[in-house]
C-alpha cells in the first residue's frame, strides 16, 4: 500500500513486469512503500542511476537497513530474507 512515511522507496516503471513482481512481494510481506514512477526513456533515468548506480528498474532504497538494490530477483530475495517471518 503506497505510503508517504515509509522507509522503503520503490523506483518503478509503469507496466514493467519485473517491477510488479517486487510489488507483489512487498504486498505479500505487508510492507508499506513509497512508489516513484520514473521516466520510460532509459537515458533519462538519472535519478535511479544516482541512487543505485544503474539505470534499471525496479530498484529499492530501504532506509531502515541502509540497503539500495536493483534487479527484481535480488530484491525479492532481499525482502523475503529480511522481512518474512522466520527469515534471517
Amino acid at each position: 500500500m503506497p505510503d508517504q512515511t515509509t522507509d522503503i522507496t520503490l523506483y518503478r516503471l509503469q507496466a514493467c513486469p519485473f517491477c510488479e513482481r517486487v510489488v507483489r512481494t512487498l504486498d505479500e510481506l505487508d510492507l508499506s512503500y513509497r512508489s516513484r514512477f520514473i521516466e520510460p526513456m532509459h537515458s533519462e533515468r538519472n535519478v535511479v542511476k544516482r541512487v543505485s548506480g544503474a539505470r534499471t528498474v525496479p530498484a529499492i532504497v530501504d532506509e531502515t537497513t541502509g540497503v539500495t538494490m536493483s534487479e527484481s530477483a535480488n530484491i525479492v530475495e532481499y525482502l523475503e530474507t529480511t522481512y518474512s517471518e522466520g527469515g534471517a
Partner: protein
Amino acid sequence: MVDFDVVELPEADHVETGETAPEFTRPLVTTEFWEDRSLSSLLENGPVLLVAYPMDGAFPATYVWNEIADRGWTDAIDVVGIGISTPYEHGTLLEERDVDARLFSDPGAEVLEEYGVTNDLDGMAGIVDARPAVFAIDEDRTVRYAWVAAEHPEFPPYDAIGEAVDDLTA
C-alpha cells in the same frame, strides 16, 4: 488593433486569503519521477506558491511557466503547479519550459474543485480544466495571497504575486 474577445468566467467560490488551504495528496511530478505527495509534506520545508493552470499544451500554460521561470520565483519559494494533465505531460512541460518547479497531476480535477478553481471549457464533455489561480500558502497552511482568474484567458498579476512571495519569504 486587433479586437481581442475575452470570455467572462462564472463567479468562482474559491479559497480566499486568510483561509486554510485544503489538504490534498496527488502525484507530484519532477523531471525525474512522480510520486504521491501531500501539500502538508511540502509545507514542512517552507511556504509554497501553488499555481493552478490550464492543460499542458494550452498557450496559457506555456506563457505562465515561461514567465515564472524568467522571474526566478523558484529561487525564493517552492513553486508547485497543479493541472489536469498526466504525469508524463507534466514531465514534458517541465523540460520544455526549463523551470525548476514541480507539478501536481489532478486529472479528475477534484483538488481544483475543492479550491474552487475550475473551468468547464464551455461544457466540453467529460473534462474539467483548471482555472488560472495562484495561492501563496504559509507553513501553517494559511493562504496569505490568492488570485483567481475571472476571465478566459487571463494572466496572473505577476508583480503583485512577486510582492506576496517577498512578504512570505522575508
